[in-house]
């Protein structure tokens, strides 16, 4: 059920977008051809509206300790200005969401400040869960999702395009920004200059940026970015290409690869779980037990990449077969636009998860050959 429209909805309509419901939001699926949008991000740049993502601010003297307790990663070890990929789990180890946390400078002495970015469909659940887990900690949890827009510029030309909106003396802020880091940058648009949080993060496998902007300035920033781009340098890109780009990059999507029924070890996210960090955290006991059981390594199923040897693509929920017996299930799959062959992410029995293992996918009654390959499917040349 669609209830929500981003501040950029009218921009998408003007651009002739086809819309889709995603996580309760009416979002652009594509503007013209999803393949053209995909290739544009790989070769030059794409412009995405990610305003459906959540933004939850966590501030206070115990903000770091609180996030160490609420999330599975060691958030307190992050340096100011950095970003970190983490998970929020249930007590039983099930994954509530995957999220990115940014450590920001606090204006108040003795306090810490973090921005937590959950997925669209989980934003309210994550905000509520963080509030509940905050009991007993000296922190303030503030869900700013409804007032914050998020615009991404992704692709090899992303930096060059954004620099045109930044005063020359501030260019180093953008040029020196490392992957998985964020900084406040003055952007000149709409007849003025605004400091906006710019992160060098993304979900495409390319270099790129995400810009947090108040709703009231989102359309003006979107227009300014399209105006400073040269002809053919930047295309608006919808969720269809976002999905094919992240799949090639081997990045999990909540609801496909990650769920409450799954666990981080099976998803290949064991390194994200800081079992050795000080103190308790939600899910610790269950996750320690899962790890001791060899979840995702010697027991159960594990998320793997599959490469199609034919032309047909596996799709979500298609069975994975070995000698005709079901040994797994596809979570995401489609023909890879960049690589030219079908790719899929699938959970398969751990003993069949070795790279090179031949497997089949049951494509609506027809068996098609696939092979386990290392992730990511696609890695950009640096």
């Amino acid at each position, binding site marked *: 059920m669609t209830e929500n429209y981003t501040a950029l909805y009218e921009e998408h309509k003007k651009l002739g977008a086809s819309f889709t419901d995603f996580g309760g939001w009416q979002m652009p699926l594509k503007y013209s051809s999803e393949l053209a949008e995909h290739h544009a991000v790989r070769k030059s740049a794409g412009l995405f509206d990610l305003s459906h993502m959540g933004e939850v601010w966590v501030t206070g003297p115990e903000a770091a300790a609180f996030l160490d307790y609420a999330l599975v990663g060691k958030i307190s070890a992050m340096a100011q200005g950095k970003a970190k990929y983490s998970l929020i789990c249930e007590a039983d180890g099930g994954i509530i969401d995957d999220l990115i946390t940014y450590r920001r400078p606090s204006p108040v002495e003795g306090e810490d400040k973090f921005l937590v970015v959950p997925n669209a469909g989980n934003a309210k659940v994550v905000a509520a869960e963080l509030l509940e887990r905050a009991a007993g900690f000296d922190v303030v949890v503030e869900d700013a999702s409804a007032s914050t827009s998020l615009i991404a510029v992704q692709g090899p030309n992303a930096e060059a395009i954004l620099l045109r909106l930044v005063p020359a003396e501030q260019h180093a802020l953008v040029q020196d920004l490392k992957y998985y880091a964020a900084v406040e940058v003055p952007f000149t648009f709409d007849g003025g200059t605004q400091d906006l949080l710019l992160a060098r993060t993304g979900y495409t496998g390319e270099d790129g940026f995400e810009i947090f902007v108040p709703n009231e300035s989102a359309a003006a920033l979107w227009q300014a970015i399209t105006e400073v781009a040269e002809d053919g340098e930047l295309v608006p890109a919808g969720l*269809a290409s976002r999905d094919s780009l992240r799949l090639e990059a081997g990045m999990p999507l909540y609801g496909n690869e990650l769920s409450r029924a799954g666990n981080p070890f099976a998803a290949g996210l064991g390194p994200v779980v800081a079992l050795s960090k000080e103190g308790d955290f939600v899910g610790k006991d269950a996750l320690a037990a899962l790890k001791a059981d060899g979840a995702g390594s010697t027991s159960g199923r594990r998320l793997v990449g599959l490469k199609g040897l034919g032309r047909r693509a596996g799709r979500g929920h298609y069975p994975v077969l070995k000698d005709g017996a079901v040994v797994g299930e596809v979570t995401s799959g489609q023909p890879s636009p960049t690589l030219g062959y079908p790719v899929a992410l699938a959970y398969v029995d751990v003993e069949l998860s070795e790279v090179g293992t031949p497997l089949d996918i049951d494509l609506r009654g027809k068996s098609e050959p696939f092979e386990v390959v290392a992730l990511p499917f696609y890695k950009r040349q640096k």
Partner: protein
Amino acid sequence: MPKVAPELQYSDEHEWVSRGEGNSVSVGISEVATDALGDIVYVDLPEVGSAVTAGQTCGEVESTKSVSDLYSPVTGEVTEINDAVVSDPALINNDPYGAGWLFKVAAESEGPLLSAQEYASKNGGDLS
């Protein structure tokens, strides 16, 4: 708005039918369908000489995002398939009513077909 070619007839499953000589008909899919599917990357067509039945599946059309059954709008024997779309499925997106035709049938009978007007008004297509 997707275009609906006014000279063709359409099935509810978004196949179009074009009459040739004698009982020969060409079959393709409408732009309403290609728009909904997105970029088509694979097409599985019935074999030449095989029998197809109106309203029954006879192949598949696969796009980057999904896979859909192809339904035959007529009953008869397949006389020709468009090899060009098999090797370059993007033809179906680029020219669904022309170079993107799919197969030809020596038709014995037809399933229920809509006029272009009926099809366009039902599916929000553009007749002009």
